């Protein structure tokens, strides 16, 4: 994946198949989130599953679409870690303050 260079030599080309697979998985994850909401899933399982799906989707967006997998570690952690921090923070609030 890293062996192909763009004409400018600045960054690797995003592999077409990789983007399409990411998109398909993101769509499936969204349908899963929606169906879980429709099924009436609530409480602790809902918090864990739905925030877990959000983290997986966030990884797809930041690492694949935003191309941070080729980026400096600081930015990968800062932008990619945002969803993880959000999931931990919101998960804690929901699990320990609300439910």
């Amino acid at each position, binding site marked *: 994946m890293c062996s192909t260079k763009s004409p400018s030599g600045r960054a690797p080309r995003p592999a077409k198949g990789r983007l399409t697979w990411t998109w398909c998985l993101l769509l499936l994850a969204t349908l899963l989130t929606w169906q879980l909401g429709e099924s009436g899933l609530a409480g602790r399982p*809902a918090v864990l599953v739905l925030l877990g799906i*959000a983290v997986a989707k966030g990884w797809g967006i930041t690492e694949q*679409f935003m191309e941070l997998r080729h980026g400096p570690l600081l930015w990968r952690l800062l932008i990619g870690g945002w969803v993880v921090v959000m999931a931990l*923070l919101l998960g804690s609030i929901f699990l320990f303050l609300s439910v």
Partner: protein
Amino acid sequence: MFQGRRHPIAAMGCLPLLAWVKAAGWVGRHTPAMPSRPPPSPVLPPVLPGDLAVWVFIAAELLVFGVFFAAYGVTRSHHVALFNAQQAELNTLAGAVNTLLLLSGSYGVAQAVGAARREAYGVAARWLLAGLGTGIGFLVIKGGEYADKLAAGITLSTSPFYMFYLSLTFFHFLHVLAGVIVLALLFVQMRGQQGRQARGERPGATHLNTLESGAAYWHMVDLVWIVLFPLVYVLH
């Protein structure tokens, strides 16, 4: 001829060692590359697409949305029954369709970046147009949701839940609106590139940087919605 002059140690018979060190990537980018040979290692140095300022802006935006989300969670913990009851009044299907639209828009924009790097500017313009379409679709669906709520007499002062629902989603709505304008400008720029290419002129030097910066912003709008949708529409 190259190694012997640049590195005296190589003249003493250490050329294989030097070659190995270079291949292992220990020397770094500042080592002058030999034009007649392929790159020593397939591993590229880290590259941040687009402009650094856009990434700083994205980090600041994510922080603001993060504070909003935490405030939603804490306020909800004081009104759990109210939040659960009024969340059930939301159109979850509209929220899910909007998620699909944003994700598809992000996919289109990522494809546009890839096409522009291949100098396939016509293809890039079409992908940007697809992204633009998904963004407008999002705005139309969200506008329909707002119209329904306003018709039902719901305002910011109706309840803490609706205060958060309206302000949080409208703040995000404005980001999508800005993103749609950015995508429209990028589309015009890409058509310009296509025209220059057709006339045999050199494409503008900064076009790729601008496209990557706009794309990063658009993905950020998508990323925020990935947390906003389950938080406001689904989690209870």
